[in-house]
């Protein structure tokens, strides 16, 4: 029996793809599994508190890193709306009302993607060390999330007819009506996608946050570093699971909305 070479190539390719996915998933499953396996399996523990069951583990992590979790949530809650407020009107201006220097400004907004997070964090510390840290953290996160908003909204704007707004104006719609009844409804998918992208990046951001964090204002990824270096494996595993809980649904939603803008991901 002869198998068509085209079929062999296809099956090999699919197997390769599945192997790649598996290689990327395996360590995550191993690490997360640590939070759900028998505590005695890992031998000696460094924690003083009794951590026997998985529930104990999660309680313990929430007790020691609850503050950090809260700070990350607050930061995300500030960064998502601010990124939209700054990014969406600018993306509209870039695509529909080009002005002198617009290209330059857009390039400058995308530039942080190629600037190491630690460089921007050092720069922020040197220029505005006295500013409340929460503001500095917000600024750093905005610098790395705005490019995602700009790209998502630009792509969406490129996808529908630029003649719609002039048409609405001829029909007597004022600027507010155009925004409310034409642009916003058309941009809803892009706005949802942007929010999810900003959320995912801000939630996991470490490079800027770690340098700008203070003992009183630590983000959850910075707490993860402390846990990885100081706590036993089951505790580190439980903290990792807590980190992943909001990320996975956000990622599924991003995939469902076709988030190709995410390809740069966040700086590791």
């Amino acid at each position, binding site marked *: 029996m002869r198998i068509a070479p085209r079929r062999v190539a296809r099956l090999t*390719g699919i197997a390769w793809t599945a192997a790649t996915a598996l290689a990327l998933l395996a360590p995550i499953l191993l690490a997360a599994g640590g939070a759900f396996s028998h505590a005695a399996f890992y031998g000696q523990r460094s924690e003083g508190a009794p951590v026997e069951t998985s529930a104990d583990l999660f309680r313990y992590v929430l007790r020691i890193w609850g503050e950090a979790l809260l700070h990350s949530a607050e930061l995300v809650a500030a960064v998502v709306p601010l990124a939209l407020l700054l990014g969406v009107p600018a993306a509209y201006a870039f695509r529909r009302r080009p002005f002198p220097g617009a290209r330059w400004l857009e390039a400058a907004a995308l530039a942080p993607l190629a600037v190491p997070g630690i460089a*921007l964090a050092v*720069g922020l510390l040197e220029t505005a060390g006295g500013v409340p840290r929460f503001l500095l953290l917000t600024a750093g996160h905005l610098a790395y999330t705005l490019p995602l908003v700009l790209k998502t909204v630009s792509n969406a704007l490129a996808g529908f007819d630029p003649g719609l707004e002039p048409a609405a104006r001829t029909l007597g719609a004022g600027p507010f009506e155009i925004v409310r009844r034409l642009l916003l409804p058309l941009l809803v998918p892009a706005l949802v996608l942007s929010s999810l992208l900003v959320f995912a990046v801000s939630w996991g951001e470490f490079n800027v946050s770690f340098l700008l964090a203070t003992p009183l204002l630590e983000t959850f990824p910075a707490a993860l570093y402390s846990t990885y270096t100081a706590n036993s494996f089951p505790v580190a595993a439980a903290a990792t699971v807590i980190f992943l809980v909001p990320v996975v649904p956000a990622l599924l939603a991003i995939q469902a909305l076709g988030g190709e803008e995410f390809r740069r991901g966040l700086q590791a």
Partner: protein
Amino acid sequence: MLLALPLLLFLAACVLWPLGRLAAAAFAGPGAPALRTVLAAGRYRTALLHSLFLSAMAAVSAIALSLVPAWILARERFAGRNLLRTAISLPLTFSGVLVGFLMIVLFGRVGALPTLLALATGRPLLASLAYTPFGLFLGYLYFEVPRAVVTLESAFRRFPWELDAAARTLGAGPFARLGRVVLPIAAPALGSTLAITFSASMGSFGVALLLSRRFSVAPLEVYTELTGFLNDAVAGALCLVLALLTLAVDRLLSGGQE
């Protein structure tokens, strides 16, 4: 214009001004001593070269590994495709410390692989692989493969396959088509994928923070200068060189697009 004003103000105050200050600090003093220290032979230059070497190796390897999955995800229809794509893009949301932790779980002193190998062979094999330069490379590869797959997939989807088909009807063989049609058209996409993965590695800090032992990389040196020696000028100069190197390679590879 007015619509982009908030963005302009933000960028000026929170990106350009801080980075400008960094550059100014690096050049401060007669003969820019901080910049000289960083560029002179020694630990800083070594760390910069390590960063360049590691990032380049990881970027090229990640792309080599990602061509087939990206092609399959872009061109083939099969059950479970979306599942595979989601699994592959999950690490895009991981910060470096998480990747470092995963490498320790896999290849650390009592990681999964060394433990399995010890059970199978009775000898400690590959123990502490995670803390070697190769372990660092594996960590970089871990967060770059998803970036490369996602970027290449979107490039393959937009690829004008009818040109390839036209070349075939005109009698071109597979190698002629690859060399004279497919590669020239795909070159910009490959370039920008290289740029994306390369700059992600150059800025990567968390992986090295957990894994690096003697083999230092530039972002790690910046951190040590700042927190260990309180040497702001050298840290700033190092940041500046790192940022400029990254931006220059990015520009070069993506040919001014993006």
